[in-house]
């Protein structure tokens, strides 16, 4: 019965200057302009944001959770990438 459903948009909000935009949810709207206007009403009723991004959900490409092992495993063995890997003797400061 519905003619043409409005497309789905993912909404990202910057809560204040200096922070990055963060995903807050999604909504439906006829185009990107109306998606921003709707996002203003749906996601920033209490001054939660100063900047909004909307991205058509159809344009989001996500990694597959089934491939998480092969994607992230290589990083697990490289503990030397973390500063805690290294011994720093007592008395050494500012390092």
């Amino acid at each position: 019965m519905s003619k043409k459903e409005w497309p789905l948009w993912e909404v990202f909000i910057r809560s204040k200057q200096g922070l990055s935009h963060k995903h807050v949810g999604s909504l439906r709207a006829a185009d990107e302009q109306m998606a921003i206007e709707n996002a203003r009403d749906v996601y920033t009723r209490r001054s939660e944001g100063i900047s909004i991004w909307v991205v058509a959900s159809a344009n989001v490409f996500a990694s597959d959770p089934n491939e998480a092992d092969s994607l992230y495993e290589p990083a697990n063995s490289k503990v030397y990438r973390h500063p805690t890997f290294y011994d720093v003797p007592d008395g050494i400061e500012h390092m």
Partner: protein
Amino acid sequence: MKELNIDELKRRFQEKIDNDIKIEPKDWMPDDYRQTLIRQISQHAHSEVVGMLPEGNWITRAPNLRRKAVLLAKVQDEAGHGLYLYSAVETLGADREETIDDLHSGKAKYSSIFNYPTLTWADMGAVGWLVDGAAIMNQVPLCRCSYGPYARAMVRVCKEESFHQRQGFEIMMKLASGTPEQKAMAQDALNRFWWPALMMFGPNDADSKHTQQSMDWKIKRHTNDELRQQFVDITVPQAEMIGLEIPDPDLKWNEETGHYDFGEINWDEFWQVVQGNGPCNKDRIDARRKAKEDGMWVREAANAYAEKRKARLAKKAS
């Protein structure tokens, strides 16, 4: 990656749940977990949306500008909550339009409390204080629900709901300390909304068929009766504080259990309302259908405008 059989997938799924690792939309999940969530979250969304109707009824008749602005903001929040929840349902692969059509056809349910009429201004107080109070009690544990998008939506909802309950209590407090007529109006609203508010927690545990599975999946964290008892324990002293009487002759403090004992709920009434025979079931669904039909041209116009704008931009770029 190697193909896992269904038992192994289920085992890994339950292991995640047991370790309080959230399930996200693209993760594997058993079909009944998905279906349970679709049913629960869409019913929750419908409740938010239908819940605008009993209060919308009083916006034009709020006693002053402050009350009117507050009520408008509250009703607007309910619309927002419905939208957060519909977008959570969509992450499970459900079609938003279909879930809304299920509401309109009577296939999907919503909270039966909204099938009671709001007859006086005091009902705005009782609804905020008791109905939102009971809703908060149900929703706070849902912030820790195992399904990520639902839990995140509930965090936003709960943050916003706390003003809803306070504004309701404030209305009741004001009326209860007003003229004898105002106090009687507040008492009358409490009398009518008390029992339906207790019914909001659902059937007794012994009669609740979904509870155990939902608890194992950590969709639900407390049983219906636990939450109902908590609500009674918290609300009774609030009523006493503003000089109103809970309409239950069996209500009394139980020194031994540390809880209030309360009377038997009229479950016949509950099931009647759930099955569509409450005082306002038909009005509510008619109002929703009418809103959808009357708004059809707006949705179509928005589509037409979007297409026109796109064409204009494309022309400019070429």
